[in-house]
């Protein structure tokens, strides 16, 4: 049942982006930026947390979940340390994902050859 919830919510977030792409011809990069900022905003107003409770991976795996992680990190850091948390919380919470993406991406660029686009 929980996997069905993850599937449905995650799939729905993807459909929303697909509609945006098909209807507005927005670039994928722009969609990703909108999703991450939306995740921060929804996390900030307290709407995304319950969605994570409900859907698990369905809410954390999409890029909105990355934004939510940033907003949660900021909130916890401000709670713990006050104003300095504004500068520390977001990136600290997202550190693992950022490092994984950049490190794996950099290594991959040294290992793999660029494929001709078809």
């Amino acid at each position, binding site marked *: 049942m929980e996997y069905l919830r993850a599937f449905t919510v995650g799939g729905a977030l993807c459909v929303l982006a697909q509609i945006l792409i098909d209807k507005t011809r927005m670039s994928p990069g722009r969609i990703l930026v909108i999703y991450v900022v939306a995740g921060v905003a929804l996390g900030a107003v307290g709407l995304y947390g319950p969605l994570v409770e409900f859907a*698990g991976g369905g809410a954390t795996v999409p890029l909105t979940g990355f934004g939510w992680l940033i907003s949660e*990190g900021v909130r916890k850091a401000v709670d713990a340390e006050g104003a300095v948390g504004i*500068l520390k919380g977001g990136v600290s919470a997202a550190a693992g994902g950022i490092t994984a993406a950049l490190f794996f991406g950099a290594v991959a660029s*040294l290992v793999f050859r660029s494929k001709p686009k078809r």
Partner: protein
Amino acid sequence: MNTDNKTYKKYAAGRAKKSPILKNCASAFASGGAICAAGHGLRRLFIYAGLSDDNAGMLTSSALILIAVLLTGFGVFDTVAKHTGAGTLVPITGFANAVASSAIDSRTEGLVPGIGAKIFTVAGPVLVWGISAGAVWGIVYFLVGAVFMKGGT
């Protein structure tokens, strides 16, 4: 043929290949849902292995990123993404693919101006605006907290 801009636009829009939006949405739903469910399973697995919630989430993202980077390197990701559209874009896999493919494609331009700079083609905007939105939220949250504390005591 004598056509002004408006009629041409209308003509071009009519002739443009209609993107089969329903089919696109169905495959985005199926593939995106499957990736999220798989991520959910991975997270469960990491928690079962004794990791904290935070670390399990972090490792789940990292694992999905690693898989997406490898598939990008082998040239499989683009082939799949042609059919899945937003289904592979919206999950963290899309972010990983964007990072890896821009790095791989710019390797010939060198380590610094090539890989080092171009790796941020998509990651840069996402990080800049995501982190900045987080900082704005932090300022608001801090100020609201400060006002509330003053009023409360």
